[in-house]
């Protein structure tokens, strides 16, 4: 162990620092949420600990990718190092020059105490290749590296977004990876001198006189070596336990009955499912995993909940975006009775829960990315109905960017009701929404220009007119900054990366340097 540490001290140092950093970050964030004053009101609403623990864990995807990159880098370093090691072992086995290295390499032959060899390459005719494929370490090493590469190539963003099943099933090769990783060190190829042997042949005293080992002239006997036991299981045991626990939990949850109370087919191939499950409770903007055994036994897909916590059912809106979703929608379209069975796991928390903590909230949803905000707006509607005074939000700016008009339809009803609601309560200024149609053509624009004078928009029937093209964020942000010079504004996005970049830039640009003046904070959903 000592020798190993001496040889690998840099690796250990880096790993310790990295792990330590992670632990530190976790504890620091956790304590910040628990203790810091600025989260006092957050805790008022959310309660201690139960929600604060979830937020760092919800950045799991980012962490997972980070760990994956680190594994790849360290695998590369590990392989290159061992390639050099094997090459040196091979050379010293073949060296006839009577050097210390060659003497050490021939060690096991005269000894009858079987396993006291140092050089895994036992004869000059053995090639590196042979040892690699006949030792446990070599075989498992090649296998798990191949598996790792397959997992990484199928997890590239392009493949993941467009051919999700391939990514999902290939990624389950990790089972082979973890098992073989545990077995990798079993052969004990990395050898250290035994304690007993150190007393008979200490390197400090005896390394010079290696030609005389075991003879009458010298006190030094031949050194004995032993392999040190595999250590990788120590690293992987805890994560494996957590993972198994999570799968068991998912299995248990999936066995609970899910009752489908309503199925709505919206235009533009959007399916709304309203369901009920015993003991299910949710917060705004959370998501669930859904499995439909009749379509695919093993696949679980995430969907944002579009219902508000105040309703007595929970709902999801599913858009056709790949094999599974298309089959799913078709299964419900055909209206077979009985309806296909659904299994649900969740709900899991996301950043949307923070919306009510900001005085002013800017919500941006692109296309189907509006779903978490559907939940939020509905929840606001209910809070108003019940005159909930704990609502911290004073003003909401809602931007929905969409390519085609058909996709508006299912959300229309909600916005319509909200419009009326606001008017009745006399709070017309509370919800400020803008709809942007990016896939317009001259036909639509012509219609819009023709109906310019009408009070309601021709596409949506809402009082607020539809805009065409993309929003000019600079104008929007400066307008918000001017209207709320002393507020903290939370910006929430559920949409593509490019949009996230421009919004983040605007947040930086329009946040005032004075912390008492307007500050924009950017939060992004991650799917």
């Amino acid at each position, binding site marked *: 162990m000592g020798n190993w540490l001496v040889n690998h001290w840099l690796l250990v140092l880096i790993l310790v620092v990295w792990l330590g950093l992670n632990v530190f970050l976790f504890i620091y964030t956790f304590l910040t949420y628990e203790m810091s004053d600025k989260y006092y009101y957050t805790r008022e609403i959310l309660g201690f600990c139960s929600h604060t623990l979830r937020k760092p864990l919800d950045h799991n995807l980012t962490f997972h990718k980070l760990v994956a990159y680190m594994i790849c880098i360290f695998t590369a370093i590990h392989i290159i190092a061992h*390639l050099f090691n094997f090459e040196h072992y091979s050379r010293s086995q073949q060296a006839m020059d009577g050097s210390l290295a060659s003497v050490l390499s021939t060690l096991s032959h005269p000894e009858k105490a079987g396993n006291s060899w140092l050089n895994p390459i036992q004869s000059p005719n053995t090639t*590196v290749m042979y040892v690699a494929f006949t030792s446990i370490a070599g075989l498992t090493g090649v296998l798990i*590296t*191949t598996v790792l590469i*397959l997992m990484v*190539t*199928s997890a590239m963003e392009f493949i993941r977004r467009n*051919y999700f099943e*391939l990514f999902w099933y290939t990624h389950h090769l990790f089972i082979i990876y973890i098992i073989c990783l545990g077995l990798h060190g079993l052969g004990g190829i990395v050898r250290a001198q035994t304690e007993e042997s150190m007393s008979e042949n200490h390197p400090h005293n005896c390394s010079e006189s290696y030609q005389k080992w075991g003879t009458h002239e010298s006190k030094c006997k031949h050194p004995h070596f032993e392999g040190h036991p595999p250590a990788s299981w120590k690293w992987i045991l805890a994560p494996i336990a957590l993972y198994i626990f999570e799968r068991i939990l998912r299995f248990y949850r999936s066995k609970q009955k899910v009752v489908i109370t309503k199925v709505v087919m919206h235009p533009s191939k959007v399916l709304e499912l309203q369901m009920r499950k015993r003991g299910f409770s949710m917060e705004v903007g959370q998501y669930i995993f859904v499995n439909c055994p009749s379509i695919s036994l093993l696949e679980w897909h995430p969907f944002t909940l579009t219902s508000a916590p105040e309703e007595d059912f929970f709902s999801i809106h599913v858009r056709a975006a790949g094999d599974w979703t298309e089959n799913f929608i078709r299964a419900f379209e055909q209206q077979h009775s009985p309806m296909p069975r659904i299994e649900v796991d969740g709900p899991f928390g996301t950043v949307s829960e923070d919306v009510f903590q900001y005085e002013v909230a800017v919500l941006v949803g692109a296309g189907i990315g509006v779903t978490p905000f559907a939940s939020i707006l509905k929840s606001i509607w209910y809070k108003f109905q019940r005159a909930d005074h704990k609502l911290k939000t004073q003003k909401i700016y809602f931007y929905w960017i969409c390519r085609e008009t058909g996709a508006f339809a299912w959300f229309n009803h909600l916005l319509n009701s909200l419009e009326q609601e606001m008017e009745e309560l006399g709070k017309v200024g509370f919800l400020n929404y803008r709809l942007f149609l990016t896939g317009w053509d001259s036909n639509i624009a012509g219609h819009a220009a023709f109906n310019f004078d009408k009070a309601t928009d021709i596409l949506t029937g809402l009082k607020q007119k539809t805009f065409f093209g993309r929003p000019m964020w600079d104008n929007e942000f400066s307008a918000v900054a001017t209207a709320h010079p002393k507020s903290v504004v939370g910006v929430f996005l559920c949409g593509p990366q490019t949009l996230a970049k421009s919004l983040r830039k605007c947040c930086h640009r329009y946040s005032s340097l004075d912390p008492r003046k307007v500050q924009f904070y950017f939060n992004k959903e991650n799917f």
Partner: protein
Amino acid sequence: MGQIEWAMWANEQALASGLILITGGIVATAGRFVQWYFGAYSIAAGVFICLLEYPRGKRRKGSTMERCGQKYMTAVVKLFGPLTRNYYIRAVLHLLLSVPAGFLLATILGTVCLVIASAIYLLAAIRGEQWTPIEQKPKERPQVGGTIKQPPTNPPPRPPAEVRKKPSEGEEAGAAAGGPQINPIPVTDEVV
């Protein structure tokens, strides 16, 4: 898994294999391992494979994300026509390229990965997939004033004669149409 295009994954796998071949080759050559010349071959093969696989082919359905700066290699790969379009040829090519690297431990990982890529390409070829280059769409510059050929030859249409003659409408008609101009404010011609 009905809509999967295997060639896309094969492409990623082959690109990764190319990089691994280069790395293994550098290790073997720099360390002057036994039979290091296989390492030198590995570097060359790896570079060739990376160049060949860098331009991503076009997906059959939907839009394809180009790799950064791939249009230059697309032009080159396109030149070889059926040699690069056909995935059977690519499968065989990768299989052959992987063999010499299999003699050296440092590069055998590249061999394994390339063989897998070759197998996936074979599967893609059996399913009838092809490599189609991603073309730049020609920018349609709207011709400003393109529809304006020449100025109109006829004067604008005037309302029928009866309308023009009516006194109540005559003023408006006269002012709007091309009839004698009736000025609301008397105008004097300053030109003497």
